[in-house]
């Protein structure tokens, strides 16, 4: 064509989020944690199950947020890592009799390795091209899971059934409630670790890459190292979420981890606010509850209603739920000044 080279101003795919805005303040954190701790005491078992799923998806959305919001790499393939984590936990529990809690770090480590390895070729890709590569990964994963060579381990198209853990030490609580608190603890640990990661030297390096890769590399940031690291960390955390998801649902099958899941996690991130870690739980609530709301309106058109709700949300809050948080924060500040 006319010119061999084209010079563009590198438009940022992800907005710049100053790191002080990436987490909640102390008071807000305490309130949220208290609410999350107390909620199951008044809820029914199936609501506790829903809330468990919200927390699990929140972990997965948070992982995507570290990758996209933190290091500026876009992924539509998170369902693949979620699947690897879920299957790792399931196979360890059912075939090797490993305790459910111990399977999580193993799943996380396996996924970290997968993510790190995937991040190596992904280094050469960015934007749309990276999106396609991750999209390809998500599309390929169910086919790999049901491959007949692995059928002995994966159960093939039929999947694997898992036994749900009882509360330990004879604690007087239902399996659902125990699992909820277990997931809550895991997710708080991951949240705190993630916030600290982004505040650390590595986190600042990732964000520098996100904001301007060339400038970051000129300043001596090892771009390749931090980009693959972000991929690995993100995949590892997603794997833990996948393992928890498998334990909560008590079942894994290739159909659980299609591209639909990757898209749901992506939407969760956008609705929660890209780069704002506390938004992950809002995004996760979106994933779990909005389809239920949509089908209340119409069964035949539930897909369309879901689409319309999504459009409304992005019209009102193009920056996701953090817009609300900022607004509230500003009010509080104003009130504080007046008072």
């Amino acid at each position, binding site marked *: *064509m006319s*010119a*061999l*080279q*084209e*010079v*563009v*101003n*590198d*438009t940022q*795919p*992800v*907005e710049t989020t100053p790191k002080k805005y990436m987490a909640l303040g102390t008071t807000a954190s305490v309130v949220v944690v208290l609410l999350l701790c107390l909620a199951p005491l008044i809820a029914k078992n199936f609501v506790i199950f829903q809330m468990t799923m919200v927390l699990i998806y929140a972990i997965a959305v948070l992982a995507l947020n570290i990758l*996209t919001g933190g290091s500026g790499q876009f992924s539509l393939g998170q369902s693949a890592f979620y699947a690897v984590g879920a299957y790792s936990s399931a196979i360890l529990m059912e075939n090797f009799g490993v305790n459910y809690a111990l399977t999580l770090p193993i799943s996380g480590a396996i996924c970290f390795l997968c993510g790190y390895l995937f991040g190596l*070729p992904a280094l*050469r*890709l*960015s934007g*749309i*091209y990276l*999106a*396609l*590569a991750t*999209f*390809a990964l998500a*599309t*390929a994963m169910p*086919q*790999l899971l049901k*491959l*007949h*060579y692995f059928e002995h381990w994966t159960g093939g198209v039929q999947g694997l059934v898992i036994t749900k853990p009882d509360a330990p030490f004879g604690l007087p609580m239902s399996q659902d409630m125990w699992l909820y608190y277990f997931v809550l603890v895991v997710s708080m640990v991951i949240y705190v670790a993630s916030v600290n990661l982004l505040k650390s030297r590595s986190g600042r390096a990732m964000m520098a890459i996100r904001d*301007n*890769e*060339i*400038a970051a590399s*000129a300043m001596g940031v090892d771009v390749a190292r931090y980009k693959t690291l972000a991929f690995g960390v993100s995949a590892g955390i997603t794997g833990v979420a996948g393992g928890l998801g498998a334990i909560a649902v008590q079942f894994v099958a290739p159909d659980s981890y299609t591209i639909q899941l990757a*898209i749901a996690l*992506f*939407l969760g*991130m*956008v*609705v929660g606010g*890209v780069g704002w870690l506390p938004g992950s739980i809002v995004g996760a609530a979106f994933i779990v509850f909005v389809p239920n709301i949509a089908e209340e309106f119409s069964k*035949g*058109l*539930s*897909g*369309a*209603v*879901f*689409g*319309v709700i*999504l*459009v409304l949300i*992005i*019209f009102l809050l*193009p*920056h*996701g739920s953090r817009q609300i948080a900022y607004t509230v924060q500003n009010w509080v500040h104003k009130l504080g000044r007046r008072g």
Partner: protein
Amino acid sequence: MDLFLNQILAGIATGAIYACMALAVVMIYQAIDHLNFAQGEMAMFSTFVAWQLMQWGVPYWGAFVLTLAFSFAGGVIIERVLFKPLGNAPVLTHVAGFIALFAIINSVAGLTWDFTIKQFPSPFGSSPFLGSQLISTHQAGMIGVTIVLLILLFLFFQYTRIGLAMRAAASQPESARLVGINTSWMIALGWGMAAAIGSIAGMLIAPVVFLEPNMMGGVLIYGFAAAVLGGLSSPFGAVVGGFLVGVFENLAGTYIPGVGNELKLPIALALIVTVLVVKPTGLFGRTIVKRV
């Protein structure tokens, strides 16, 4: 050898489907600088409109032209109503918008026309082409239409004022505005053209795969892959990419023992990713130099 040639020929025949779709993908990329995940659903909806018109007694070419007009208008309206108000929202928010559009169109089409497959006529007939049973006259016609479209697009973008303006608006919006190009309408125009090309793709693909609300799901993945392989900035590359993906996939399914058939899509995708790693802007894409 005979099987090998046959498989290449059969791959080209399927590749024509991907090439068609890839062309529509590149068109929208030229206009808005990213991929539209709802592109396949828009094409599917347009094809249903053509089918409905024919059910009402409109002859094929009449329905064809009306559908083109409908799709063009539809594309412009979607841009004006849905994406223009999003304006400067982050790119990822736009992507969420595409996903919403996907869900809405798919759901509405399913409710309106059911999920049972429908036959869609071909203007070229479906007898064997030049004695080969692997390529029908329809598939040959499809390849022909794709090439004609490609030439028209090339001429449009290279030699018409409006085509040049569209390219300028997509790649350098601010500079384009400074030289007096109405970038906002250029984007809407791009949406309209992409929707119209998509509808042609849909109407050509439907006779092969049958018309139903989910008919484009698989095609779109391959269309993206083809467009990216060829280079998103090059319509020519997209078409070549389409044929390459078709042939790749078919040869993998035939010749890789054991897993070839079960994993031909992952293998084809892995090959594409490998190509991208070596040549990050695709086979025919322009190298982009980033400015700090």
